[in-house]
């Protein structure tokens, strides 16, 4: 290998073609519109998701209220069934006899 060749090879990457990215007003316009559309889509997506979650929250809240009402009804029913008037009127009570005398065991 001669010196000249070696020099050429050594400098062969020194020369580059300058890449120029030129954007005209139309391109910029397009990119701006695309960006706006993209952002709008993202926003719509978020709004839709929020609405969906709102709907879910509403549904769950309604279910919670429903369950609370059911619980309340059951508590009232339980209290009603345990009330003295119910107990007195029950079949078990009908089979009982009231005692007239009570005996006490005297401790020795």
């Amino acid at each position, binding site marked *: 290998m001669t010196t000249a060749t070696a020099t050429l090879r050594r400098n062969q990457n020194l020369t580059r073609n300058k890449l120029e990215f030129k954007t005209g007003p139309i391109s910029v316009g397009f990119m701006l519109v695309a960006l706006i559309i993209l952002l709008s889509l993202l926003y719509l997506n978020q709004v839709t998701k929020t609405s969906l979650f*709102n709907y879910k929250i509403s549904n769950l809240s309604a279910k919670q209220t429903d369950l609370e009402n059911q619980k309340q009804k059951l508590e*009232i029913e339980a*209290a009603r069934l*345990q*009330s003295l*008037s119910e107990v007195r009127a029950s079949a078990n009570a009908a089979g009982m006899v009231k005692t007239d005398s009570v005996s*006490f065991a005297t401790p020795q």
Partner: protein
Amino acid sequence: MSVLQPHNNETESSRNKNRRILILVVFCALLWVITAGRLFFVQAIDGKDYLARADNQQQRKFEIPAKRGTIYIHENESLIPIALNTQVYTLAADPKFITDQTKTADQLSAILKQPKDVIQQKVSSKGRYVELSKTVDSDSADAIKKLALPGIILAQRPARQYPENELFSQVLGYVNADGQGQYGFEQFANDRLGGKTGQLKTVTDSLGIPINSAENTLVSPKDGQSYVLTLDRGLQQVAADAIKSAVEANKAESGSIVVMEPSTGAIKAMVNYPDYNPNDYAKVKDYSLFQNSAVSKQFEPGSGFKIITMAAGLDTGKVTPTTQYNDTGEVKFSGYTIKNAENHKFGIQTMTDVIQKSLNTGVVFVLEQLGGNPTAITQKGKEVFRDYMNRFGFGKVTGIEQAGEATGYIKSDKNSYDIDYANMTFGQGLSTTSIQMLAATAAIANGGKLYRPHIVEGSVAADGGIQKEGNYLVNDRIMSPEAAAQLSQMMTQVVQHGSGYLTKMPGYSIAGKTGTAQVPLANGKGYEPNKNIGSFVGFAPVGDPKFVMFVRVDYPHVEGFAEKTAVPAFATVAKELLRYYHVAPTQ
């Protein structure tokens, strides 16, 4: 000249142009000033008003009701609810939208169990809002919703449910359609039971529907406090049955029974008859039924008050159970004569006899002893007697957790003559309540300690435990334990040999005192003929009392004194109480 002519025209034209520009500039400036001025007014001066208007259009406030506290009683280790929350519906109609009135009335009538013609008349009216029912239960509301009737409106609202119906009616009171406690404990503790309403301030859409926003603010509601009462359901039922029987058997107008633990002041039973069902309070026509007459009714106690006079005599040492006096059957004061009931006269009698035979002359004798002059009522004697009435809590509320408690009435010293004091010694010319008589007798039963009668055991803590309320001891010595013991023994003679004999039980030492009080005329001059209030106050077992009880029967229409009207009811409940407290007979 001709050369200058065009120049002049140009100048004129230029001037006109400048003038027009100037006018335009001035006009614009004026417009700007007007606009700026208006903006200033809108933003700086009327800004707050506009902001509020905008807020009103874009935001809504929703009230979040607090959950009302539950009221419980104890039963062994369990808590039994006696007042709890439920949901009811108000049913209304907008007749404009009802196309088939007959069908609508048919279907609603079947569900509501109301006459069809009444509903049809309402749904056919010309108004835009007709209320059909205020208290539709949730099952009926569900059935109505399924029908999807046009023009029918269902609005949910919280309500109160009382599973024991009449049993605790006057002690609890009720909660009205506005969520406010009325009468009894519901009214007394309304603020604490009701809690604090919350609020959601939210941004809404054009239809007024709330939307999620960072601007939304939520103030959570603070739920009401739940309470546990000292009342016992079983005893309450026993007392309710007993007073109902007493009122009916004596053809009386009404009556009350109150049972208290003398060592704590805890009320175990408190009933009145007639009563009402708080679940149907709107159906009650006689509003006096809402009152808990055990705390709100003032009456002359009659002979039951003799124990207070005797307590003063014993505690001051002016008399003893064996002190004697001569009962001539009457005592005279400056033109007035005080006689014993039925004009009895017994000659030489002891103080024990005074209580046992309920001698009016005997308690007047005690009043005379209090002043240091054995034959006259002195100012000092009056002061001592008044002091003891105050010590026992007469003339002021006891502080029991009930709305509408009455103070009773004791004439002031300025307006009282000797005859007034003499009358007061046997319970006339003053008024008391059942709860005052009960608390005072409890102090005698427990050796001189006055407790505040109370129905609240405690509040329910967040962890479900019970947080006890404060100390109920009002005065730890309103009379000496010795004097209290002496008086207790004297009162046992009423049961053993006196007017309380119907409550005598073999093996049990029961103390008591009857009272048959006259009823003052409305004009204050004299008493109603053939009208009385029979009462009996007592406790057992003497020495270690487990209960003290007051029974009152109002205006019985039968012959006889309290021994016939009030004592039998006392005996019935006392028998159950002795079993309840596992008191074995000792004698």
